[in-house]
């Protein structure tokens, strides 16, 4: 077993353990923190795959920005703890069974259909941010623009959904009357 495989297996075990811990934590803050750890682990795996830019983006965007947003909301809403119990009968059992079935199916489909002998090394092509940028603005300019639109819509949507009061429009009736009386005076 080469050192790379050993490192990978360790990282994988950490990632899976973090994911399981996220699922079973009763406190949502713990869940979020376990998820951050999971993302960081995945980021290391990206480094192993020879994609430093993606790895850094993984850390900053996911583990950084998104998870910080999560923590904000958790603390804002006070939703750390929920009462226990499962109101839906059979949900837990059926969910676990079919989760296991899904896992088995994916493994069967993706691994045993294609075999075990393909090996993955590091990327040998240029994966620098400059190369990615060129690729993005040459080949993927339309998806890029669409994504920018998606982000814009998301920003506007978030603002409108969390708005507290309706916006005051200029020129409300009482305002007008006040203006007029001022002019007369």
């Amino acid at each position: 077993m080469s050192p790379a495989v050993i490192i990978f297996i360790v990282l994988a075990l950490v990632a899976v353990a973090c994911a399981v811990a996220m699922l079973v934590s009763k406190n949502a803050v713990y869940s979020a923190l376990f998820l951050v750890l999971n993302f960081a682990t995945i980021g290391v795996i990206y480094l192993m795959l020879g994609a430093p830019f993606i790895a850094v983006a993984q850390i900053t965007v996911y583990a950084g920005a998104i998870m910080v947003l999560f923590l904000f909301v958790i603390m804002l809403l006070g939703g750390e703890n929920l009462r226990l119990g499962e109101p839906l009968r059979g949900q837990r059992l059926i969910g676990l069974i079919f989760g296991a079935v899904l896992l088995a199916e994916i493994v069967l489909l993706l691994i045993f259909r294609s075999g075990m002998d393909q090996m993955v090394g590091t990327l040998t092509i240029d994966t620098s941010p400059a190369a990615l940028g060129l690729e993005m603005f040459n080949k993927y300019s339309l998806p890029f623009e669409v994504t920018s639109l998606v982000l814009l819509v998301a920003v506007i949507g978030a603002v409108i959904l969390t708005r507290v009061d309706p916006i005051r429009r200029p020129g409300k009736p009482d305002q007008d009357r006040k203006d007029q009386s001022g002019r007369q005076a």
Partner: protein
Amino acid sequence: MLLSEVSLHDPVFRLAPLVIFLPLAGVILNLLIGRRLGELGAGLIACLAGAGAFAVSAALAFGLKSSPEGAIVLIWRWFQVGNLDLNWSLKVDTLSVTMMLVVSGVGTLIHIYATRYMHSDVRHHHEPGRYTRFFVFFNLFLAAMMVLVSADNFLMLFVGWEGVGLCSYLLIGFWFEGGEGGLGNARAAKKAFVVNRIGDFGLLIAIFIMLGAFGSLEFSRVFAAAPAVTATAPGVVLAITLFMLLGVTGKSAQLPLFVWLPDAMAGPTPVSALIHAATMVTAGVYLVARSQPLFVQAPLAADVVLWVGAITALFAGTIAVGQYDIKKVLAYSTISQLGFMVAAVGMGAVVAGMFHLITHAFFKALLFLAAGSVILALEEADHGHDLQDAQDMRVMGGLRSRLPVTFWTFLIGALALSGLVPLAGFFSKDEILVAAQQKSPAVFIILLAAAFLTAFYMARQVFLVFFGRPRSGAAEHARENPPLITVPLIALALLSIFGGVLNLPGVHTLEHWLEHSLNVTPAKFVLWIALVSLAVLAAAVTLAWLLYGRKPRATAREADPLAARLGGLYRALEARWKVDEFYSWLVVRPFERAAEFLSSIFDLKLINGLGDGLGALVQSLSTAASRIQNGFVRSYTLVFLVGVTAILAYLLLR
């Protein structure tokens, strides 16, 4: 507009489509802006549309004078199915142009009359807004009638045939909220429509058989092929002509389908004059005349036509004797005269039939319009509103001095209808009688009897309406109508006087005119027949004078002098031989009972039960199914997961 590739001998024939499109333009204009223009504008548009059509018809007639073989003017290729190639094309020949002239000429005069008549009528019925609608319908009728008479194939003729039927329905029910129990007029319109439908069904069947046997509906090709088809399958032409006859009895109000025409008098009087006396009801006569080559091949059918016409002439004449409604008398008279025409075309005297059609259009329109003038005068003089029925002749009387113009024109019309020499009716009726005498003595006797009745009931009507003393306050104070009413009357009276010139014995203008489109047998003038018919006229008028003129009825309630002399027979006449009741017993009542059964048992219980049951089933099923929708997102996700695993399993096991 695509005009014909067929060479037109005279460029004036290119105008032909205008006879349809001018009235149609009137319809559209009045629909769009008629209400805004007011009565004057709407009436003017309608009259101009009619007059324009008349001018075009006259131009076509002059064109035909130089090139009498006429032309076929293609407007539009309608459709092509298999071997059948149908066009909207107008047949411009002497026959169709004659009809166009009558329809648009008489029609325009009646339009002018109606501008004034409807002015009062809509006020009398308290709804001035309907004025425009009336003229829209009127112009639409003109357009449809022009389609009918100018058609070059049977299907286009059928379109016009249905179009005039529709207009007739709309105009009979013009005051649809009026009549007995608020439903009478609507019921009359419905009756006309349904009875006409029976006839139309016959015509449609005739067209279908024709399509099967001839493979074409164009007049020229059908008529050209008729002898060959008769030689191979004689029954086919007989069937076509007999079914066509069913259509004729419907549209031209012949036995046994005449019952709708008297009820059609529920419409305003100009409608009765234009549609139910002068033009539309003559469509059947025109159809037989046009299809003459077919009837020549089926002598049996022609004989049936002849007998239907003759018996109708007599039968309707008897009923007219017992009527008191001024318009009903004229309605039965119309049926009787249509019987004369149908008999004439049935015996092959097509020119005589067409001649009578034309003169009848003149004097029957005149009589109806004059009757309308009487009704109008009575309604306007009826200040106390004590008149039950302004059309009842028993409340009239003594109107001779009060409505002088109306009286004289009515008298001219009545005499023309009765056949006094030298008015129009004398010549046309005489031609029919001569032809009948040559064909069969029995028919001659029947028609002579009908002529006697015609003179009798017209004299009776004149005596009842215009002579004696007024029998109601309204009749007492009636005053003559303004010129818009009387000028058309005078014009029609002149036409009734001089209409005979069209086909004078020895000259035969109309005969030579029509021989370009029909096979004519030269008519003869037989002196003794003319004298006999004049003697019959004199006898009838004398009898009527003895009964009604010498000692006029004094009050409205008095019994008819005939009632005492004829007893039960007169009551049967008054009750119109109970034909309506018989039909009601034979057809309407069983039909209603069957409908009742079907609606209460079959429809309500079975069909509705089936529908309700299905509805209840679906409802309970969906209620059960809606429980699956429990609102828990996690359940939905679970179902989603199950679906995904199922699809993956399928992919694995494939």
